[in-house]
């Protein structure tokens, strides 16, 4: 088996550990005194972590020159979407229990909810167009569409920041990691001036 295939399987299994631990804690009745809040925070934490990890693939590839790592990117992005979906459903079902009026009010009036919702919709669009078929059908538009992940990273960070009373250490860690992976792209683009559009296309989506 190729190493990258093995690595992919290992990461797939590892990425399910947080969900498995959450289920284990639920069975053990160990979800703190406020289970809904705990599930909300845990799924949200993992959604944003996987978003950063997804954005770290390209920098790692460029730094190491190990190109097969790119094959992990879609899967990691889908795991971010997976945890974001659980995060969204926790809010939708457990927190508000289908109280549409209250949720609509929250989306309209609470900037952190607005930003969270916008982030989720962006990730949804990216997940839906993550198939080989979509990549072929959308062509260059696909590359443009998938740049939304940068916007999603920023809105997700704002959402996280505004959701808490203080700047919690977990936010600081994610922020530093996000600045590094996004900063790398800025640095990369400025150091390798693109001579022509054609070469930009062959370099593909960062």
């Amino acid at each position, binding site marked *: 088996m190729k190493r990258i295939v093995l690595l992919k399987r290992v990461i797939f299994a*590892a990425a399910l*550990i947080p969900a498995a631990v959450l289920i284990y804690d639920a069975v053990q009745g160990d979800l703190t005194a406020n289970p809904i809040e705990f599930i909300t925070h845990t799924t949200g934490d993992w959604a944003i972590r996987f978003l950063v990890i997804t954005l770290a693939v390209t920098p790692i590839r460029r730094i190491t020159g190990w190109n097969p790592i790119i094959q992990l990117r879609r899967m990691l992005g889908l795991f971010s979407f997976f945890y974001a979906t659980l995060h969204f459903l926790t809010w939708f079902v*457990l927190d508000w229990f289908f109280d549409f009026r209250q949720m609509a009010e929250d989306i309209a009036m609470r900037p952190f909810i607005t930003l969270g919702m916008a982030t989720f919709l962006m990730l949804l669009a990216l997940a839906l167009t993550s198939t080989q078929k979509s990549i072929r059908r959308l062509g260059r538009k696909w590359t443009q569409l998938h740049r939304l992940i940068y916007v999603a990273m920023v809105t997700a960070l704002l959402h996280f920041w505004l959701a808490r009373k203080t700047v919690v250490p977990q936010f600081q860690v994610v922020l530093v990691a996000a600045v590094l992976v996004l900063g790398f792209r800025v640095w990369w683009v400025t150091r390798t001036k693109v001579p022509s559009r054609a070469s930009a296309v062959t370099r593909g989506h960062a």
Partner: protein
Amino acid sequence: MFIRRAPDLKFSDITPKSLYLRRRQFLQTAAGAAIGAAAAAVVSPFAARVAAQQRQGTGHGAKLSNVKKSPLSTTGEKLTPWDDITSYNNFYEYGPYKEDPKEQAWRLKPRPWTITVEGYAAKKGTFGFDEFIKPYPLEERVYRMRCVEAWSMVIPWVGIPLKDVIAAYQPTSQAKYVEFVTAFNPAQMPGETTRMLPWPYVEGLRMDEAMNPLAILAVGLYEEELPNQDGAPIRLVVPWKYGFKGIKSIAKIRFVDYQPKNTWQVMASNEYGFFANVNPNVDHPRWSQASERRIGEFFRRKTLPFNGYADQVASMYAGMDPKKLY
């Protein structure tokens, strides 16, 4: 001057092909190590949690005797279990997460403990904890506790009436407010070494609020001494206000002529005020205060004005702009 020189590189400096090819292997090993580290990072908090559960000092406290039931207790509410009251705390001196206080508060030594009374009062000084609470009979007060984060509990506090304590120190007419200060002891309260909040934690009440019969200094719950994570050995309980007004592990009480700058107001004055009275109609700038989740319940319930204690406290705020009372 033009210097002609041979290249620095000798043939022996060229990386041997075998080593060059090993670069890939190295990267793969590095990737494997990174995954291993990530897995360890995922697992380690659970190991820490198990270790923390074995710590002393945050479990059941000594049984309190001669506790009389108070007619001022809230009736008709189901009590929040002891486990929930002692494992889900906002106490930033031990960390920003709800589970931190239970894990970290074993560091606190609640005895010996002193409370310093200062400011505009006839009687002042520093008193040992036992000496400080001795004159007053212990009362059980069951109160709702509404956190500014929109969750709530029902807690059977054991405490002493604040108004009796204040009267004992004979504040002068210049004393308009009472300022409370948490112990500053970074060795025992590791959060105080961070810059998360300005330390030590400060809270305050207007004199009439402090003299309201509902206000107590709590020293226990469920007829036991306060566990460290709930603010041992002595804390403020003002049930008509958001929970952050209930300052924990009090070391100083000052009678002052100015409105104290309470910590959360200093931290974010657009979000937290001085009065912090529970009000379902005045939202937190970032979330609604109209409803709350009672710990242990699935559905949200409506938040009551003054947390349901309007009859006893609303008159103190007659004529004041309710927007200023958050």
